């Protein structure tokens, strides 16, 4: 679960990025986070992944209280949150298999587990035949699938996708969103940060709109809560 309560985040230069954000995303939810550039979306992601601490208010993510988290606990928080970026952030010198296996090694998985889990996840994202390739030999859509596989491989309870379709054509964008929905159907919480209004409308999910550091709209919250109940 992700819970923000009256969160304020101001930077050293005096910029106030978040000005009292309160929101809650339940386990297993699929949610869009939308807003113009500079509205505070990136700050929310950085707060969720422990890159930043709130100036005031409380942030709870998958059992961790981010306002008082210790530095050495942050890696363990990040293992519960898989992040997918617009620019994929893959390691070019590693193969597809290695890019995913690497994320498992980081958490101390045994080689046997890695050999079993990586092909399963690559199959889930439709890259089962491309394990030996390098990221640069793949299309943008395939690279984003690989990034999703890496985010997914350690079985995190939450996936955060930051503009996952920003570098893709409409067809590939739809495929990626469908894949994220499929992952959500398996029980993983999915938070998608996007500008793509057409995709938001197409998928009929909860939409949290941020503007000037405040939640200005939270559509579909009641329906989602009703479903949860």
């Amino acid at each position: 679960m992700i819970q923000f309560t009256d969160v304020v985040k101001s930077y050293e230069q005096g910029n106030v990025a978040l000005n009292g954000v309160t929101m809650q995303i339940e386990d297993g939810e699929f949610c869009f986070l939308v807003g113009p550039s500079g509205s505070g979306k990136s700050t929310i992601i950085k707060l969720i992944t422990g890159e930043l601490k709130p100036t005031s208010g409380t942030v709870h993510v998958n059992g961790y209280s981010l306002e008082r988290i210790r530095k050495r606990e942050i890696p363990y928080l990040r293992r519960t949150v898989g992040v997918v970026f617009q620019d994929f952030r893959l390691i070019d010198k590693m193969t597809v298999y290695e890019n995913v296996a690497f994320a498992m090694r980081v958490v101390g998985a045994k080689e046997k587990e890695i050999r079993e889990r990586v092909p399963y996840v690559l199959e889930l994202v439709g890259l089962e035949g491309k394990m030996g390739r390098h990221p640069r030999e793949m299309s943008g859509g395939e690279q984003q699938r690989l990034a999703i596989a890496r985010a997914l491989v350690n079985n995190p309870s939450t996936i955060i996708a930051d503009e996952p379709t920003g570098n893709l054509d409409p067809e590939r964008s739809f495929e990626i969103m469908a894949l994220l929905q499929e992952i959500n159907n398996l029980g993983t919480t999915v938070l998608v940060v996007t500008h793509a209004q057409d995709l938001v409308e197409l998928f009929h999910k909860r939409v949290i709109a941020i503007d000037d550091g405040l939640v200005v709209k939270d559509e579909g919250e009641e329906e989602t809560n009703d479903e949860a109940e």
Partner: protein
Amino acid sequence: MKLNNLGYLLKEGFRGIFLHGFMSFAAVCVTVACLVIVGSFSALAYNLDLMVEDLNQTSEILVYIDSDLSDAEARSIGTKINLLDNVLQSTFVSREEALEDFVADHDNDSAFSGVQASDLRHRYVVSLEDNTKMKQTDEQLKQLPGVVKTSAAYELAEGFSTIQDVLHIVSFALIAVLLVISLLIISNTVKLAMYDRKDEIAIMKMVGATNGFIRLPFIVEGFTLGMIGAVLAFGIEWAGYDALVQRVAEVDALQLFSFVDFQELLIPMVAVFGAAGMFVGIVGSWTSIRKFMDV
């Protein structure tokens, strides 16, 4: 960090050396260059120190014996001289030998043909263990019964001591400065290598790697590169030193310069190069990576 990761992390450290070939090559080259410069200067300073020490040892005190004493009495004073604390060695020079030396020193000039051995005194040539205490020893020699006069070149001995002191200070200062410069250059080279891999580090942090997990391969890599640099530098130093000594011996017909064998420097060189390589590799990696860990 789990134990089953250790093998992987060590392997990654070694793999990193080849994977980032150019930066590894640059780091090794800088390490070699810095160590060779520091090593060469240290070897040169050590040899110069020994040469000055040798020159200083040539400073002696001449002790003149009372001419009224018999030959046997004069020779017996040698035992008392040798008993003094700072005396390394004393050599008896009889009147006759002194005359031969005197005539030889004046190119058998006929102007001195009238000089007789009896005009001269028996004497001792006394060399000292520590020439900085020449004055005190000279005073002690003057107190001995049968000694009428001494001749000691204090200024020369003090001059050598001053040269040696200056040489020590300058050597230490230059070696310290060279070491600091070397560390800075090497640290910057490692930083460049780290910068090359900042995205990789950021990804590791993002997927939940602990700081220890991220650091270990870099430390292994830094240590290995440092040691490779140290071994290469040591080999170059050895070969270069031997070549230089041989060349100097060929051109220095007067044997003004005497260099010690590299074998004499072997153990300190191995220790210093090994420690410096290890230190530079580990500390360079550790401090450089810190900057990229705050993600």
